[in-house]
């Protein structure tokens, strides 16, 4: 985590508000139930929005810590599944090569 004075919330506060609002919408409830078979959990977005606003107003260390923890937890949750394939270090060599009939022309 960046400790120096240049730290800012990972997302603008407006993004946290938009995510919280979307999460609480009836349409999102329907989508989430359709995919996961349960109601969505939106409380963390509300907490993050409050922390973001708190940091903007008071530059609160507690708010900074809370936001970092929350976002790291999201990243961890997204990466917890073992990948089926190995990731590349560089793109495929032939991605930009011309098509075979173009090469022959």
């Amino acid at each position, binding site marked *: 985590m960046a400790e120096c004075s240049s*730290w*800012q919330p*990972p997302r603008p506060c407006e993004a946290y508000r938009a995510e919280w609002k979307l999460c609480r919408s009836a349409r999102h409830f329907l989508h989430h139930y*359709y995919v996961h078979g349960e109601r969505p959990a939106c409380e963390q977005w509300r907490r993050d929005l409050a922390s973001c606003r708190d940091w903007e107003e008071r530059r609160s260390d507690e708010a900074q810590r809370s936001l970092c923890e929350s976002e790291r937890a999201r990243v961890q949750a997204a990466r917890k*599944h073992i990948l*089926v*394939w*190995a990731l590349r270090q560089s793109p*495929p060599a032939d991605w930009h090569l011309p098509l*075979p009939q173009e090469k022959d022309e």
Partner: protein
Amino acid sequence: MAGAPDVSGPGPAAGEQLQQQHVSCQVFPKRLAQGNLQQGFLSSFFTSNQKCQLRLLRTLETNPYVKLLLDAMKHSGCAVNKDRHFSCEDCNGNVSGGFDASTSQIVLCQNNIRNQAHMNRVVTHELIHAFDHCRAHVDWFTNLRHLACSEVRAANLSGDCSLVNEIFRFHFGLKQHHQTCVRDRATLSILAVRNISKEVAKNAVDDVFESCFNDYEPFGRIPHNKTYARYAHRDFQNRDRYYSNI
């Protein structure tokens, strides 16, 4: 009653040795004619080809799912060029499109893509395959688990299995039905390009499902509609700020 559902899948394996009859050569007939990868710009196909090109252009310029995928691919070193990486062709059967890993090209079945919304979905689906090809060592031709994984991701993230699309297919279900749809459509996509039994295809999907269903790259979430896709794109554009502040 609706006809057989259209499927999209990778692996028209052009350029691969024709030692055995691939199912894919029956679906994409122009791809595997010896040394012939010409597009169908003959006068009898002009109208459907023209529609395909115009719809593709509109998709590339306006659709938020596709714009995010194009950005993500550019970031991974695979900038997409419309004329190089897309091809509108006539296809057999009900297939809507495919990704040809041997030529790094997305095939769009101009005779089977019905309207702009369908084009949006097909391009999204195939770009997910292209994105996987770009970022990972995907063995499209000999590793069924890799193929199954990309098909699960494409069915999950492209909108193929949205509630509305399933209703139009007369598949009614609500609680967790999305996952059922993803499994079924991934299986169908595999069967469209591989000469294997349904049981083998289904087992491959089941084997990789837990991992691949939860791999949301590059969206970071399941984009249920364009709003989610726009939010995902916003997050992608914000990623430098994000990762430098956690």
